[in-house]
């Protein structure tokens, strides 16, 4: 074990845990800044999606990971941010104004959704947020004078100070917003507000007895989380350059919950890992799908199977690979596997791998296992 000697309380919760960490984040940042010059436009576009999802992941981390409140209606906040952006842009509001305003506006919506959260817990809260998402979707579809209903809305490319943003400059805008959102989230988590969220999550009774106004902090968590998602919605609208109600369906909300389940709810790093997974899983599955027929062919040849058998196997494999809903099945299995075997998500796995190399060659599998508990923590 390494114990750092600290000489004053001012540095008790620094932005970077160590100089080495600061160095590696700087390297990552340099890589991300150079990305438009290194990557093909397809991968740059994927990076933008990852950043938008990461912002939503951060929003959900604050709400679910920190404050312990469930939401399966976050697509609605994304929609509110996106439509706010489309309308604001139509009326000639500049980007520097409507981007933060999208956050504020969605934050107010989040505050209102947070009000029922004061009385609801767990599954009931989940259902309430789900209902909210359906209501928002329906309103967008019906309010044709503003939203053009199911026809959707086209967005012209974003412009900053009269300068049209191309895909590369838009990438830098997304990067800037992502970094700012993550910094804001870190500051919240290491402050009195963040500790109050944590207190509400772990024991509401104790939180109240410590003087925490649980009602106020729950709505604050909802407003913050919604506001951040609204900003992601603004970026999303520009990225897609066309928005319509079905882009903000239940499936999207579930995608968002998967970000933090797969990534891990404990830290913000989890939100980023989860976003990478959710965005990159699709293209990886497609690549895999293209390879499988030739792989099976090679396999059947290697086994010297008769032609008839080869054809039958090929047909079977193709049917499975092209079956509709295969992706959902795979994602479903992944979620179940994560919940059972890695409740801390990719982030937990990351920490263990890191600990393994730190302790090498002394690391033992058992030391990574959480201690057994016989108190309240176990019963949860």
């Amino acid at each position, binding site marked *: 074990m390494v114990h750092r000697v600290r000489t004053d309380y001012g540095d008790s919760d620094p932005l970077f845990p160590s100089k080495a960490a600061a160095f590696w984040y700087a390297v990552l940042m340099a890589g991300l800044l150079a990305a438009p010059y290194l990557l093909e436009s397809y991968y740059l576009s994927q990076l933008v999606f990852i950043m938008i999802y990461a912002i939503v992941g951060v929003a959900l981390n604050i709400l679910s990971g920190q404050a312990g409140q469930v939401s399966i209606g976050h697509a609605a906040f994304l929609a509110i941010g996106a439509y706010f952006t489309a309308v604001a842009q139509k009326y000639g509001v500049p980007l520097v104004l409507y981007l933060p305003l999208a956050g504020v506006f969605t934050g107010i919506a989040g505050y209102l959704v947070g009000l029922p959260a004061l009385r609801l817990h767990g599954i009931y809260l989940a259902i309430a947020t789900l209902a909210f998402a359906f209501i928002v979707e329906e309103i967008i579809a019906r309010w044709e004078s503003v939203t053009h209903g199911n026809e959707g809305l086209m967005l012209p490319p974003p412009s900053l100070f009269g300068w049209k943003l191309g895909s590369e400059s838009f990438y830098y805008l997304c990067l800037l917003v992502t970094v700012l959102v993550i910094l804001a989230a870190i500051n919240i988590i290491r402050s009195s507000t963040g500790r109050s969220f944590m207190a509400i999550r772990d024991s509401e009774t104790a939180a109240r*007895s410590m003087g925490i106004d649980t009602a106020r902090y729950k709505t604050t968590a909802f407003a913050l989380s919604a506001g951040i998602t609204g900003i992601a919605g603004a970026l999303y609208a520009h990225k897609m350059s066309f928005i319509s109600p079905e882009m903000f369906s239940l499936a999207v909300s579930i995608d968002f919950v998967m970000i933090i389940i797969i990534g891990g709810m404990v830290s913000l790093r989890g939100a980023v890992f989860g976003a990478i997974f959710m965005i990159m899983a699709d293209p990886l599955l497609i690549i895999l799908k293209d390879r499988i027929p030739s792989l099976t062919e090679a396999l059947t040849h290697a086994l010297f199977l008769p032609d008839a058998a080869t054809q039958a196997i090929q047909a079977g494999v193709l049917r499975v690979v092209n079956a509709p809903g295969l992706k959902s099945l795979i994602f479903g299995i992944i979620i179940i596997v994560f919940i059972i075997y890695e409740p801390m998500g990719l982030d937990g796995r990351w920490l263990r791998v890191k600990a393994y190399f730190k302790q090498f060659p002394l690391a033992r599998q058992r030391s990574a296992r959480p201690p057994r508990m016989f108190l309240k923590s176990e019963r949860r």
Partner: protein
Amino acid sequence: MTFFDVKNLTVKFGGLTAVDDVSFGLNEGEVFTIIGPNGAGKTTLFNLISRLYTPSAGQIIFRGEDVTRLSAQQIAGRGIARTFQNIELFESASTLQNLLVGRHRHSTTRPWQDILRTKKVREEEVAHRRAAEEVMDVLRLQRYRDTTIGALPYGVRKVIEVARALCVGPTLLLLDEPSSGLNVEETNAMAEWILEINRRLRVTVLMVEHDMSLVSRVSDRVLALNYGKMMAIGTSAEVQGHPDVIAAYLGA
């Protein structure tokens, strides 16, 4: 003006009167203990005082102010802190973070200031940290500073809960069975700490306790409850010698 007064406090859950017309007063600086058999209404009384429950009738007066209708968080804001019989710590957080939550009422920053981590936030964080460290010094908890509560033994958690309540900066500390689940050694240490908190930090202590040796060692006065009613009030020896108390405990 008395320091803390409970007047004719009553609470009914359906047909059950859990606390029935209880009245007592605390002098500033004393250690006052409530004893009684299981189900006597001791913890209910505590929950009434810390306003987790709402009384059906009666009044609670703290330093001349009627606090009967305040919310639980406002009670903490007035300087009344409590611990719980079954430990209500924030288990996924470290000891230090638990203590810092206790400092909540001293924090004056708004969420937007927290987001920007303004100078004021940074200064307050240092002040909170210093206060938490001082409490850790008193209760010798430094070695558990960064350990997650879930990984600590029960006896230590019990002390951490007292520490967290002290971080609130209370003038009145409510301890709900501070020695339950502790062994003899830990109980002795707890008794020393209660005395130290009372004498050195000048905190008035109201506690519920079963361990009579601990009760007689630290209490200035004792109140005995049974079936929500007051049986006896006085010094530890007086109450233990009271015929009704003996009858309630021995079932005679």
